[in-house]
């Protein structure tokens, strides 16, 4: 038996923080490739501390629904899961390259395949692009559009910015969008000045956050000038300083994120069959069918 456990931050204050985690778990569950699919949270229940004991399987794939490597993925989660042999050198990561490490959880004696966070996986670039497609409702969005990949950024953790820049660079190399920029809330270059960084009239803003909350629903809309007061709402697209800004909140709410979770587990050795393809097909933007998968019937 193999189990998938998706671990995420959750919130004591925001009821929507856990919603994307539940939804991606449901998407993976429907593929039927894991005997069990569970979720666990730092701030909600079951806690990281207790989730493994609720799992029957002896092989457990743990995928952190976090954006970057750092404090949570390297210290908090391994500690709380009781992965006593954990050493962050096990990932041999440069800050964005962690894949997985196989360890034993001390309290339950199960084999835990501890994966790198979803946010640094290469497939995350596709989710960001998909987010742009979803926001604009255009599966071919790109020509004439700029793309702003937005991260929190923090002086305390250099990996936080690395993940954002990594994907911005990868997407830029595809030459699909006219311009791609990595922008931040708490360090330069700042999202407040978003229109200064783009020549394109249309700019899609994709925040690299797991769930919608304070930052994506309050700070960023006000910072970029979509609204003076988040409580009064905003329109997408909205015209700001001569640019049309397209904004629809956290990338983590994009259905394709379930695919990244699966890819992480598969690389750690999970048998996921053709679930990756199934999820990609099921989560596509309406109108994005290709001849290869049109009429798949689900």
């Amino acid at each position, binding site marked *: 038996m193999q189990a998938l456990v998706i671990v995420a931050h959750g919130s004591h204050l925001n*009821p929507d923080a856990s919603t994307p985690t539940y939804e991606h778990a449901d998407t993976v569950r429907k593929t039927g490739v894991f005997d069990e699919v569970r979720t666990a949270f730092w*701030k909600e*229940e079951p806690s990281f501390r207790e*989730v493994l*004991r*609720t799992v029957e399987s002896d092989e457990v794939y743990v995928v952190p629904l976090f954006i970057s490597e750092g*404090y949570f993925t390297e210290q908090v989660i391994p500690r709380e899961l009781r992965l006593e042999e954990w050493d962050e050198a096990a990932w041999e990561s440069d800050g964005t390259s962690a894949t997985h490490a196989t360890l034993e959880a001390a309290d339950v004696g199960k084999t835990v395949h501890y994966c790198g966070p979803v946010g640094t996986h290469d497939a995350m670039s596709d989710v960001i692009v998909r987010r742009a497609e979803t926001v604009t409702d255009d599966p071919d969005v790109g020509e004439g559009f700029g793309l702003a990949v937005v991260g929190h950024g923090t002086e305390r953790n250099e990996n936080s910015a690395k993940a954002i820049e990594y994907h911005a660079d990868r997407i830029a190399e595809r030459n699909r969008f006219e311009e791609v920029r990595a922008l931040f809330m708490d360090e330069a270059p700042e999202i407040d000045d978003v229109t200064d960084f783009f020549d394109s009239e249309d700019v899609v803003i994709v925040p690299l956050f797991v769930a919608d909350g304070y930052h994506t629903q309050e700070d960023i809309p006000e910072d970029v000038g979509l609204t003076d007061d988040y409580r009064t709402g905003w329109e997408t697209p909205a015209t700001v300083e001569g640019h049309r800004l397209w904004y629809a909140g956290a990338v983590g709410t994009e259905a394709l994120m379930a695919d990244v979770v699966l890819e992480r587990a598969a690389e750690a050795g999970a048998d996921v069959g053709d679930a990756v393809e199934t999820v990609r097909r099921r989560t596509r933007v309406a109108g994005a069918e290709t001849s290869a998968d049109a009429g798949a019937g689900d």
Partner: protein
Amino acid sequence: MNDEQLDALVAAAAEGVECDGLRVSREPAGFRFETPDGDHGGLDEADLRAVADENPWFVSNWYYWTEVDRPAVETAFLRWLEGADGTAVPERYEALAEGVDAAWGELEIEVGLGDDGHRTYEVRHAEDADRPVEDLEVYADPLEARELVKYDDRGRYRPLKTAPTLASGWAFVDLDGRSLVRAVDVVYPATVTNWHLEREGELDVSHWRETMERQTGIYGVIETWDRGEGHEHVEWVAEACCVDSQCLKRREWEYDDGTDLAVDGGDGEFPCREPCSLVVAAARKWTKLEGEESQTYEFELTPSEKEQVEDIIDAVADGTAEEIREADVYEGANRYRTRFLRAKRFDDEGNLCGVPTDEE
């Protein structure tokens, strides 16, 4: 009982069967079939089938508890629900036919008899115990409970799943054992597992000190709260957060391995094995606040006003402020009385009796 169960019994007889008073074995003289009501020996297979056929409850009960593949924790919980370890099979089947109720936190779980001795389970809020199921929102998929547990009856987010504020008005019906345990695990995560570990004598409790010592980042500060002045502050935390009125888990953690807390751990069926994330977050705030030194302030209050301040603190701490009627000015925490007190005793900066918080 059905043919599959009977065939399984005959097949298992060679190895020996023992469950809730039923014993079946193969001896040199033939099969032996025993229940508390009778002992039949020297049976050939046809005889065994005949006598088993006359005791269908014992056979289906054995089949349900031993031939259905389920983890030990699930078996233990489901058997506990129907009182399997303390009630003989015939009495239990008669009770199950009527429906056997068990309580788990605010849940009422009813066990009934399905076809051929299989059990069916229903779960709802205990407050809805006597309501006809037609009056309730009926669900079948345990995962749908995720939305039911998110908000209380007043629509407020419930960050603590074991808070005694579970919303009512719903029911999961016709569940099998697996689905029932999943539903309970969504409502009260990990409680069944920890309850089972406790029964097996294997519950791993992390006491206050060790739990706080492992905190890092913004929570690392909690460790500094111990400044050699005893552990009264942990008593206050437990009294504030970990009593039955606030959480249905039974607190099993203490100050440390050798130092119990005086505050009662509560009467919950399922144990709490370490301070939860809400307690940790609150303790971080208190650690900072408790770093302040006391100051002496001088206020002018009438005796009734002093009592009113005490009433207000009680009402907020107990969550009863909302229950005080609009016009009930006899209650100290009544809104109009409180507004009068503020109008009279606060200055323009919101200082009680005009006394500034920080000395000038």
